């Protein structure tokens, strides 16, 4: 049982949908991103997705790309991202943290070392975009053995024949990518996404969270309503990129969270 499982059990008991917020670690510097992160639970965030910056984020649109560049230019490293998690955990023992990013920085660290450090720091799950089920032996299976959830993306191109393979070795929740495309791109339409979410829910007992292309409280409500919750990333990261004060970023997060929770 991980913090992620506990969170979904609590939300189910309360009859609420989950609101997941993505921020980029170290954007634009460690202090600012830690201040945002610390404010997320009070703003209504149920699960935090913490982006690990990478020079070549192939699945991300310009908003997340430039956020990663800002973080790297600000001196962010995997070591500092883990420090950030420890600092957050010193004050918050409940809110699940999912690290999201690409495989190479983890591979460079060494999978064993990384998993030991991540569990010690208080990470609950991993989303690694460029590790499909075909590469499960790399990180997915060792991560599950270390007690971390390995959360997989299902997409509009994941047909019914392939779905069981994607769901196998997945835990925590399933992240349904609502569009074909990169983060922060076209807007997702609840009517299009609903049958897809139903298809996935018919094949698994895991919660299904919808992400990509959600930018407003109204959209958050619509998309969370047809699933077990929703993720917002680029819309939050964009405000950080514009240099908005932490309080303003968190106000926007609170509005998005209220949207999802009203579903």
């Amino acid at each position, binding site marked *: 049982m991980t913090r992620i499982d506990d969170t979904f059990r609590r939300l189910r008991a309360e009859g609420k949908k989950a609101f997941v917020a993505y921020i980029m670690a170290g954007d634009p510097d460690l202090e600012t991103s830690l201040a945002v992160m610390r404010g997320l639970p009070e703003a209504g965030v149920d699960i935090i997705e913490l982006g690990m910056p*990478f020079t*070549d984020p192939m*699945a991300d649109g310009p908003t997340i790309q430039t956020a990663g560049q800002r973080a*790297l230019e600000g001196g962010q*490293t995997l070591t500092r991202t883990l420090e950030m998690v420890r600092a957050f955990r010193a004050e918050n023992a409940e809110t699940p943290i999912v690290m999201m990013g690409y495989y*190479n*920085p983890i591979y460079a660290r060494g999978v064993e070392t990384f998993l030991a450090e991540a569990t010690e720091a208080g990470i609950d799950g991993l989303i690694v*975009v460029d590790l*499909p089920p075909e590469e499960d032996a790399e990180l997915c299976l060792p991560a599950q053995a270390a007690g971390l959830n390995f959360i997989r993306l299902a997409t509009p191109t994941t047909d019914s024949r392939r779905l069981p393979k994607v769901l196998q070795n997945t835990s925590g929740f399933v992240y349904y990518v609502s569009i074909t495309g990169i983060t922060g791109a076209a807007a997702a339409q609840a009517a299009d996404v609903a049958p897809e979410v139903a298809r996935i829910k018919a094949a698994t007992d895991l919660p299904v969270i919808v992400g990509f292309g959600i930018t407003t409280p109204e959209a958050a409500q619509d998309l969370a309503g047809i699933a077990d919750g929703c993720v917002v990333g680029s819309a939050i990261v964009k405000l950080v990129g514009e240099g908005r004060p932490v309080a303003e970023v968190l106000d926007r997060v609170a509005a998005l969270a209220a949207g999802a929770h009203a579903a």
Partner: protein
Amino acid sequence: MAEDGINSYMTGPDEQGRFGIFGGRFVSETLMPLILDLEARYEHAKTDPDFWAEMDDLWKNYVGRPSPLYFAPRLTEHLGGAKIYLKRDELNHTGAHKINNVLGQIILARRMGKTRIIAETGAGQHGVATATVCAKFGLKCVVYMGAHDVERQAPNVFRMRLLGAEVVPVTSGRGTLKDAMNDALRDWVTNVRDTFYCIGTVAGPHPYPAMVRDFQSIIGREVRWQLAEQEEGRLPDTLVAAIGGGSNAMGLFHPFLDDPSVRIVGVEAGGKGVDDRMEHCASLTGGRPGVLHGNRTYLLQDADGQILEGFSISAGLDYPGIGPEHAWLHDTGRAEYVSITDAEALEAFQLCCALEGIIPALEPSHALAHVIKIAPTLPRDHIIVMNMCGRGDKDIFTVAKHLGFDMKI
């Protein structure tokens, strides 16, 4: 061959798309079904005589294959050692080896019912080849090219536009080949239904490294029979080719991997020198294994796994990775890999012009610079075959700048 317990170097990759630990399919889930479909369709096409009949016809009548295997007498005499043969792939239609592979992928794309082709390009040779074949077949073509490369390869940008392709300058990252590949992958993940991604080198997720190698292997297969004709049945003693991603080299090397007497040398771009300043593109000599663009291979990266920008006078070699099969051939020791600096390549470029009347591209100038180093040390009956994989017309502005020649008339 019995070394390392490997019976053959020609059977890879395995079912997971691996050459040893290298290769694989490190892509997002959105692309995974597309890559599996591509693999199935390629496996089918590979054994279909109609597919190869179409290829052979176009290779002969559209590309101009076989390209000559030319004995370079004055270069040989000047260096005073080994006999030097040049595989003249710069004489292909569009002026480089790139079209060998593009034809194969576009014919496959047409069989798959795809109507829109995307490609990444560095020097612009792969972009020009893709734009050319798309024009021939009436397909929509979008080429991603780093903004920095758009600037240093202006003639090729104009060629692509003349051929009807849309050229998209990529400003993300530092605007070179690696960033162009990122944006091509972002396009593909967005336009999954109608789009075929035509990768220009032996890298990317499986099946691309194997597929591109298979299409480029026409180079080595021709060398085998051409040299046998010209040198009374002999095999080459040494093969030399330049490597960015490594497609022209893989095409020359692959048919000879199981001939133990053939020494195989890949030449990486040493830029300003392979040292701690990292102003080079020598992934094997100066990098370590990592995962990028769908495959595990040697990469230029920092201690934290962040990818570093390469540096080379040649836009076509300016890539921080290398094809996974080269990484494997390097680790098994079957092939050796060396590096050549910008300055050495520029000297070789000029020598080739002066002695053989051939203006080489900057990419094969790197290979030639290594030939210049080794030929004098080898006996006169030693045969070197070097792949002249592209012509230098596109590079004259760059070279003029480096030699201090004012091109303004």
